[in-house]
């Protein structure tokens, strides 16, 4: 698939982009295979339906409790982090967040930033901002590294390079990494990435990361990962900058274990990730490694707008596991790039409007059958289908006057459907999009009400 740069009107071109993927059997098979893999892995992690259900309820309660106290907890988090020696910054917009991060970089005359996986940094397009400021921003998550090398964007929030085959990656490494021969052996490819990125970790001036949970009481930033690049990004360089949306906060440390368990089991079907990294401060005077400065940037970017509305506030419960994508029949058919938003899939459809505006994202709400698979697997019970309906209501203004007139009036309904059945031979054979892959819809010659009368 060609490069799809961040699109500020993702609605435009959504159908064209979806069509491109749908008509590519190879891509379709590869998304299908990957999603099946993740779906099956998740289900093995939840052998007990009762445990899954009660744990999801607990997850929902934890998230709702913390969102209920969000402003208080943010102030508490700021106090705890400051006490621990972590510097806290606030940003309302992506531009403000980038300015804060670049300011820290410039203070340290930074040339190279290594990045752990952070969707918020994608959201603010930090890499572009760094490039413009003459700072090299290097992605270090294997998937993100591959995507960056290819000049693309992540197509899944957990598996950024899920749209690429190993052969494509082999060609990419051969072309873009100096001295690398073509190999499509996955182990060898990973070792190539490891080698390149190790040298970057060694010399990087800044390490950037996201945050999975920020604990207000203890002033702790928690990061979930498997590769170790998140730990390296937050440990090896002299300065660590973490960035997070304001919603990723929990009051107490003991809120973390249930959420962590839900997150890793829902995301990749692992009972736990390889690493869970809890950072509560920069290097102390007697310690020998770790960054000497740690910063946290708290980003709004539309989250306060969602917060203002009781129903839309539920979008902020999200712990970014991606299970809604994995289980979405639409995502499975079109992959992440078609959406044109940083966050694709069902969750992307309901959070992107806060970031980009409803006008820019309205087509997306129609790209769902409301099948409910996303809501069913959401580990924190976000009612995604209900929220999609709500967005549909807000996206459209022209009412279906004629339809309502017919169906609210039994007499008009009877006339209209009688005409439909009596003249069913007049049914057009071309019924627009419906007949592109289906035979035309044709009313039966007699309606049920007619059959019942005949029978009597």
């Amino acid at each position: 698939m060609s490069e799809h740069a961040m699109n500020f009107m993702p609605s435009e071109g959504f159908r064209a982009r979806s069509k491109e993927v749908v008509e590519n059997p190879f891509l379709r098979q590869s998304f299908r295979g990957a999603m099946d893999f993740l779906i099956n892995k998740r289900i093995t992690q939840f052998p007990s339906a009762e445990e899954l259900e009660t744990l999801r309820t607990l997850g929902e309660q934890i998230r709702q409790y913390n969102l209920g106290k969000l402003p208080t907890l943010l102030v508490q988090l700021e106090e705890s982090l400051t006490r621990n020696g972590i510097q806290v910054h606030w940003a309302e917009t992506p531009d403000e967040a980038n300015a804060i991060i670049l300011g820290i970089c410039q203070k340290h005359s930074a040339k190279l930033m290594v990045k752990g996986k952070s969707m918020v940094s994608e959201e603010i397009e930090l890499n572009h901002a760094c490039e413009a400021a003459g700072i090299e921003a290097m992605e270090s998550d294997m998937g993100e590294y591959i995507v960056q090398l290819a000049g693309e964007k992540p197509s899944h929030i957990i598996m950024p390079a899920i749209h690429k085959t190993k052969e494509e990656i082999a060609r990419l490494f051969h072309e873009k990494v100096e001295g690398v021969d073509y190999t499509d052996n996955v182990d060898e490819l990973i070792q190539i990435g490891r080698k390149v990125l190790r040298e970057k970790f060694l010399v990087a001036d800044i390490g950037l990361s996201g945050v999975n949970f920020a604990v207000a009481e203890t002033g702790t930033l928690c990061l979930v990962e498997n590769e170790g690049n998140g730990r390296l990004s937050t440990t090896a360089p002299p300065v660590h900058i973490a960035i997070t949306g304001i919603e990723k906060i929990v009051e107490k440390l003991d809120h973390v274990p249930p959420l962590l368990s839900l997150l890793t089991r829902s995301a990749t079907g692992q009972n736990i990730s390889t690493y869970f990294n809890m950072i509560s401060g920069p290097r102390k005077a007697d310690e020998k490694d770790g960054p000497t400065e740690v910063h946290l940037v708290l980003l709004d970017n539309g989250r306060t707008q969602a917060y203002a509305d009781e129903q839309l506030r539920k979008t902020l419960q999200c712990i970014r596991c991606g299970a809604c994508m994995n289980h979405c029949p639409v995502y499975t058919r079109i992959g992440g790039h078609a959406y044109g938003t940083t966050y694709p899939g069902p969750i992307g459809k309901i959070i992107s409007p806060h970031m980009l505006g409803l006008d820019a994202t309205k087509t997306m709400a129609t790209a769902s059958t409301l099948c409910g698979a996303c809501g069913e697997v959401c580990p924190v019970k976000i009612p995604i289908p209900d929220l999609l309906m709500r967005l549909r209501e807000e996206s459209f203004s022209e009412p279906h006057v004629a339809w309502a007139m017919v169906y609210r009036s039994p007499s008009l309904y009877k006339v209209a459907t009688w005409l439909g059945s009596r003249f069913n031979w007049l049914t057009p054979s071309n019924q627009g999009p419906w007949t592109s892959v289906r035979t035309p819809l044709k009313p039966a010659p007699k309606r049920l009400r007619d059959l019942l009368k005949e029978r009597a």
Partner: protein
Amino acid sequence: MSARDRILAKLNAAPVLPKAAPEIAAWYQTHRGTESTAEKAARFRACIEFAHAEVYAVSHASWPQKLWEVLTAKKVEKLLVAPGTTHGQRAISVLSESGITCRGYEQSIEDWKEEMFHDIPASLTAARGAIAETGTLVLWPDAHEPRLMSLVPPIHIVLLDANTIHNTFYEVMSNEGWGIESQSAMPTNALLISGPSKTADIQVTLAYGAHGPKELVVLLIGEEA
């Protein structure tokens, strides 16, 4: 008004009803039982081995011997240790006679970062405890045993006492009073490690040794018959 004040003002203006505190203790009470040390050790072992770690049952007396065997089998000639710890000292005294060099982590990383990244094949640290249900090691790196020890060397060997294994992550933090100043104030870095570094980012194919250790070896004290 600063960005901070504007964000807080918007949040405070929202009509939000407080929600009841989640009953986390009750959930774990209902859904997780208690187990004997042997049961927990067995579960821990099965889980972390499933995640590709090697586990050896050892005793307090025998672990240095097993350490030597593991290093020899893996043809490791240099081991990063923490000289400020008793286990580090024991490793130094045992291995120095066997031709394996022990490198102590004694300076700030800035003084030897190149060597750490390029010339340290293995490290030895202790674990503070472990979690049975997920096969997880709990490490709290400190001045003696700094953060990068368990991260940069391609082979990480961990000493774990079976008596410190808990059933769940929740149990570890509540039993040990994590985050409570008078008991266990949070360290600058606390880690849960559940296997060697890995990734499935290329075509969902699992590969080990993405960025952290390629091999994780656990010397489990107390399980030995």
